[in-house]
């Protein structure tokens, strides 16, 4: 087994916890990921069809102040995440274009489920006002009931659905 190439999980958890604590101390908020995806989507819709964006009660609130929706804490944090992940991958020699999947399934199947899974996840995250980072992890760190409930709903649901999708993974 060649597991040692990743950081010890408890040490990585300590590091992640300190990053979250820094966000709370410096910017009085938690971490996020799905929010950054939302701002990217809102900016794209604003570029492609500005009229639709201004007429919709959903999009228009992101254009009210006249600024680009990407000039936003979460959007910049997500940009930083890409650089941070790249640095980590470079240091640990993991930079490589590849499709990661079980040898039992095809590339097309893996990528189809990746797309559908991404769509489900971010749709649910918009409904719950945050994903594993913004709702579950950051919510738990500030003792938010929403954080604990969302965490249990995500993992509980994934355990139940895991039985149906086991052929994708094992």
């Amino acid at each position, binding site marked *: 087994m060649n597991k040692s190439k990743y950081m010890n999980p408890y040490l990585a958890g300590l590091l992640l916890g300190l990053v979250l604590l820094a966000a709370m101390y410096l910017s009085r908020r938690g971490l996020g990921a799905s929010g950054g995806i939302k701002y990217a989507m*809102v900016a794209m819709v604003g570029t492609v069809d500005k009229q639709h964006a201004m007429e919709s009660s*959903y999009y228009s609130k992101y254009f009210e102040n006249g600024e680009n929706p990407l000039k936003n804490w979460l959007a910049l944090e997500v940009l930083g995440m890409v650089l941070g992940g790249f640095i980590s991958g470079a240091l640990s020699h993991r930079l490589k274009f590849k499709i990661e999947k079980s040898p039992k399934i095809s590339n097309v199947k893996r990528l189809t489920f990746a797309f559908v899974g*991404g769509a489900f996840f971010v749709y649910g995250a918009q409904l719950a006002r945050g994903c*594993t980072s913004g709702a579950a992890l950051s*919510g738990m760190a*500030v003792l938010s009931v929403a954080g604990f409930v969302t965490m249990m709903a995500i993992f509980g649901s994934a355990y139940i659905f895991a039985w149906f999708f086991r052929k994708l993974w094992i």
Partner: protein
Amino acid sequence: MGPLSVLSEFPEWINLLIAFAIGIGFGFALEQAGFSSSRKLAGMFYGYDTTVLKVFFTAAIVALAGSQLLSFFGLLDLSQVFVNPYYVKASILGGIIMGAGFIMGGYCPGTSISALSIGKIDGMVFLLGGLFGAFLFAETYPVIQSLANGSYKGALQINEWLGVTPGVFTLLLILAAVLLFWVAELAEKKFSRPDITSDL
């Protein structure tokens, strides 16, 4: 005393610079933990790799205990830190939809960004799906609006709800985490899949 952005009245660009720096740390920690690998993440739900639980709960208790300690010593005003509001139905239904997405796609949004940053094509496609999901939510918002904004409970905190102090709850969560770590270590032995884990 923190939070610095409120109490020292940062201009917006400094706060955005902090966001970028925090993001670098966040992305670095996720990738080092192995969260750029979908098969490692999926291991959580079949028992062969429980890194998700160990990293997630360690991070939660470090940030929770750390912020409680900073508050106790008067270094952080926690009343200024954002507490996620609780919308009962939206949190539960949103969480269930997210769980289904997790096991189909193999990532969550943060970990898919981590995967993208080292070149995983499945991570990039997950993110494209994520953009589509956000678009779908925006376009279906008029229909789902009342569900999304219903059963609002405010920024309810779990210690209030249980009637204990934040310190007592923090201690209980640390004990629960230690118990979960022990179960996770047992699970990795019982559901061991060397054929998969040697690949990761």
